[in-house]
């Protein structure tokens, strides 16, 4: 039963992830991303981490991808023309990412063949209480720094998106930064 669910949702995750990358229609790419994230959430449930799985659906599937879709539909993007190769930098990063992925897969297979325990995570690691204790005790400082970083990003997005107001000009700081981005 567990194996069947794993196979179905694992395959679904892989196929929909391929559709995200390969489909030329941005809306359909985004919708496939929804399927990928949902299938990964089910895999989290199978691994014995229901909280992470539910959060994945709540935050990524239910909120962030909706915003992606909102932007894609608002901009009314057309079907993407097939580009040949892409930039040089893009190729370097693609090779690096592929190498990292291959290394991690190889490491997992190697650990599996040498008999390491790769079973479900134990309760002490994934339960709500343990997760909260780790997050707000051991990792409190990084957690707060990430919060600050997100706040800075929100303010930056606001400054970038703010229309310059020709009548007032009372805020030279905001004006100069909008000028700089052009």
């Amino acid at each position: 039963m567990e194996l069947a669910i794993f196979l179905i949702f694992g395959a679904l995750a892989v196929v929909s992830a391929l559709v995200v990358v390969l489909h030329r229609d941005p809306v359909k790419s985004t919708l496939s991303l929804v399927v990928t994230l949902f299938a990964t959430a089910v895999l989290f449930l199978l691994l014995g981490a229901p909280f992470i799985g539910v959060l994945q659906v709540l935050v990524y599937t239910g909120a962030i991808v909706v915003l992606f879709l909102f932007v894609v539909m608002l901009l009314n993007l057309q079907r993407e023309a097939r580009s040949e190769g892409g930039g040089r930098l893009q190729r370097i990063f693609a090779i690096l990412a592929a190498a990292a992925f291959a290394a991690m897969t190889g490491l997992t297979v190697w650990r599996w063949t040498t008999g390491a325990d790769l079973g479900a995570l134990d309760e002490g690691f994934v339960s709500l209480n343990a997760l909260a204790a780790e997050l707000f005790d051991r990792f409190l400082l990084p957690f707060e720094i990430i919060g600050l970083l997100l706040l800075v990003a929100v303010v930056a997005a606001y400054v970038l998106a703010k229309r310059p107001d020709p009548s007032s000009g009372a805020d030279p700081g905001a004006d100069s930064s909008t000028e700089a981005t052009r």
Partner: protein
Amino acid sequence: MSVQTIAMLVKLGAFLGILLTTIPVMVWVERRGGAMMQDRPGPNRLGPLGLFQPLADAGKFIFKEDILPSEADRFLYLLAPVLALIPAFSTYVVIPLGPTIEIQGEQVPMMVAPAETGVLLFLALASLGVYSLVVAGWASNNKYSLLGSIRASAQMISYELALTLSVVAVLLPVGSFRLDRVVEYQVDGVWNIIPQCIGFLVFLVAAFAETNRLPFDLPEAESELVAGYHTEYSAMRFACFFMGEYAAMTVLSALAATLYLGGWHLPGVDFASMGILGVVLGAAVLIAKVACFLFFFVWVRWSFPRFRFDQLMAIGWKGLLPLSIINLIWVAAASLAGWL
């Protein structure tokens, strides 16, 4: 079969039965209630008080022509109505219908999925509801539908924040995501509506926006967008959106009753010690509370005009979100001081 398996099947059947009965009843309440509020007779030809009108409506939906627009995206167009039903018919699994009882020495909780993630699971599944609207509008290849979809995606995200924050405030003193724990907490103390009246208000307003009911039905706004995201849909596919909306209203009402009005609890009556009878009576109490909420939905729909989209965003971000944060801070301070 074990006791738990049989109990599970009975619970599933009970919930589905309740949910599927609510939809035709709600169609009647909506039409007759709206007529009452506008001082006109409403549908009164079929059966006593027009009670068989939903049957006639269903027959009409089944036999009408099913139209597929020629330029529509076939796969997504056919998928969207199904997506509308999934969140509404899956979220009820975490709502307790009655007190946990003991059958043959086993503890049987009266919810379909007694998962530790409880109300988070509800919110996660409910947050998928926006996709049916977005996919429907985009696949129809119609500018009014597309505008409805764009509105829906912005609206649902904005109001989900306030809704979730008000739910968090309820969970804080309870210390668990499980809704049966939330009800037990209220059985021992007072109903959450008393210490958290601000949170209740925020939840209620956000619930209207989440279910796209007037005064927040901007995604279908018939005066500007024809019928918004479901303009192109007809027959049973349209009925799916319709059923999804009523089912979503029902489960969200059940969640509101469980979070703020004590769920199956009635002050002064000890359902937990009555066994199976207690579950049946508790379920009846919960259904009565849900019915009050559903009537309130109808009442508001026929009483208030629709908001403009900028007003909708202002209410969500400048009104409800700060209010829900104030409520959260108050509840956190009160539970730290030991008052809650």
